[in-house]
């Protein structure tokens, strides 16, 4: 369970989140959507305590993030970035297994886990496990990123524009894959995107962020029917 309570956040002198309150239930997928710079990535970093709120509280499993040990907090969430950030000096298998290895898992268990996850994200481990990140396509890299985020089976998954850099066909394919994986693993997911279609395709609920404020947060159908002028502008621009 993740909750924001009247959260204000700044980056430098700029206010990026202004009085945001929201709640994500276990096993639910919340998609935060908004233009670049609207404050979506900041929301994810607050959950991981890579940033701290200026006012208000961010609660993870009922505890203020500031009471969590940051390392333990981060290890309890998988993180997927738009740039993926695979380690170029490690094989695909080692990339996926890095967090288990750092958490003290035995080598054989780590490798077995990495291979199972590679299979889950549609990359046969016998074929891909020993490759270097430079030998993968963009879509394959993104799949490895998802596998890496799931490595120690964390209860939460934080995804920052995970499919943003991909072409439309690959993106559609990965959306279907994501839905399938989410049915299997049932994580609490917060995904941020600037793509309204992606938000409707993936979210159990969709939150619209504009200029640091959460202007709407509801089921996709409700958002789609919204009469709020800000939401409408975004919708019309995206769906026209």
């Amino acid at each position, binding site marked *: 369970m993740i909750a924001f309570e009247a959260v204000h956040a700044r980056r430098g002198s700029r206010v990026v989140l202004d009085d945001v309150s929201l709640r994500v239930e276990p096993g639910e997928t919340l998609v935060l959507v908004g233009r670049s710079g609207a404050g979506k990535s900041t929301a994810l970093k607050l959950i*991981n305590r*890579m940033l701290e709120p200026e006012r208000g509280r961010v609660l993870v499993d009922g505890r203020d993030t500031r009471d969590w040990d*940051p*390392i*333990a*907090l*981060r*290890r309890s969430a*998988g*993180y997927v*970035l*738009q*740039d*993926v*950030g*695979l*380690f*170029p*000096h*490690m094989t695909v298998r080692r990339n996926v297994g*890095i*967090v288990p290895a*750092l958490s003290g898992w035995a080598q054989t268990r780590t490798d077995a886990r990495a291979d199972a996850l590679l299979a889950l994200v549609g990359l046969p481990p016998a074929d891909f496990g020993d490759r*270097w990140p430079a030998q993968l396509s963009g879509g394959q890299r993104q799949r490895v990123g998802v596998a*890496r*985020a799931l490595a120690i089976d964390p209860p939460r998954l*934080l995804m920052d524009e995970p499919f943003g850099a991909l072409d439309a066909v690959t993106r559609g394919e990965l959306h279907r894959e994501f839905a399938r994986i989410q049915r299997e693993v049932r994580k609490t997911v917060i995904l941020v995107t600037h793509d309204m279609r992606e938000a409707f395709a993936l979210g159990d609920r969709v939150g619209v962020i504009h200029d640091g404020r959460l202007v709407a947060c509801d089921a996709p159908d409700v958002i789609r029917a919204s009469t709020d002028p800000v939401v409408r502008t975004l919708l019309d621009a995206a769906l026209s």
Partner: protein
Amino acid sequence: MTLIGFWRTHAAEVWQLLGQHVALVLASTLVAIAVGVPVGIIAARRPRLGGPLTAAAGLVQTIPSLALFGFLLPLPFIGGIGARTALVALILYALLPIVRTTIAGLQSIDPSILEAADAMGMTARQRLRHVELPLALPSIIAGVRVSAVVGVGTVTIAAAIGAGGLGEYIYRGLSMVDGTVILAGAIPVAVLAMVVDGALYLLQRNRASQGQSRRAGPVIAAAALLLGAGVAASSLSVGERVVVGSKNFTESVILGELMAQTIERYTDLPVDRRLNLGGTFICEQALRAGDIDLYVEYSGTALTAVFDQPVQRDPSAVLEIVRTRYGDTGRTMLAPLGFNNTFAILVRAADADARGLRTLSQLAAHAPGWRAAFGYEFLERQDGYPGLASLYGLRFADRPRVMDLTLIYRALAAGQVDVIAGDATAGLIEALDLTALEDDRQYFPPYDAVPVVHAATLLRHPVIGAAIGRLAGRVTAADMRRMNYAVDGQRQDPAAVVARFLDTIGGEV
């Protein structure tokens, strides 16, 4: 002697010098890595600290190495002659490339990779070890490569302060004007530099292309093994030894060898030779600090260059002043060896004969059409060229050129210049058919050769005084010129020349 022949007859020494060379480069590079990589890491994290740090390291690199050795000599603990000072200088030189490439390597890492590392819950230490250092490694190795190759070259210069290494052959060859000996040192140095460069290049390329985190263990183990072998080779001699120094020209080396062999012949004390130690300043510093126990100085040089006294022309007055001054500063001057190596103004014998030129007074008439070259010390010193020019009214065609003492005789013989200042006992005077002009107005002060011994050494080993005392007044200018010529002109080994000389006077003592 051919190059191969030289290496064959000096095989043991070549290996020892090569071992010292490798040990110095390895030790300084390893220390520079141990210091430079952490400094680079800190500097990359804190630019406010890193800026001044790299600026300071850069400043050190702009100091010419010989000058840096000079600065370090008089410092306590880290100074003095020998490998210690050389190591300090080498480490200072090696630091900058390593610090710089560490910073560059760390800062060039894609920020999204670092964000991923943080987001997945790596601690700062884990991120450094598993992500940042492996990714910066090719860059760091590139810096190590630069440091090591520069080190191979700089160690050569460190021979000037008695650090050993293959530079000893280069200095020895320069002072003997013997190309074979220079090459005997220079060629292995060049090969060593290429081998080091090539090996590190392969390592760097291997890292860059694969990115695989192989164990650094074998490489470090091999380096440590080589270092151990080098240290063992260079320090086989432990225990108390009498250290004999000399300056870096033939006569001083011969006199150093003469001191060393005399002590070996007439006492049971083992001797360490630190010959070719640069100029007066370095020998003086070394003797003052007790890094060497004795060397042969010239009375006039001691008076003006060491003790900063005005020039005097009475030989016994000069000896008295110098004896007192040395005594006041913890050194003992022993009895003069017998010859006076004063300056000699030299011209080609052919020129002198053609013009009937015999004295310095006569030179003034010819000087305006001639070019002159002098050693740096002679050109600048109070008792050198300025006084000479005003006494004899000398004005040359151009401002006299500064020329290294090891090259100046050949420059005169080859006609590049027409007048030089040399030593009255220079063997090359005969060898190159030169003529010394008579100092008819008694300008040059006396330069009697005098052994100077660290006083504490003499107290511990009075036999040294007795042994060296046997030479008092026994070395004539003719003896000295003969020995100089044997080494300079006939390419004989200084040790053999000195041994023969001691044999000839030995029976009479």
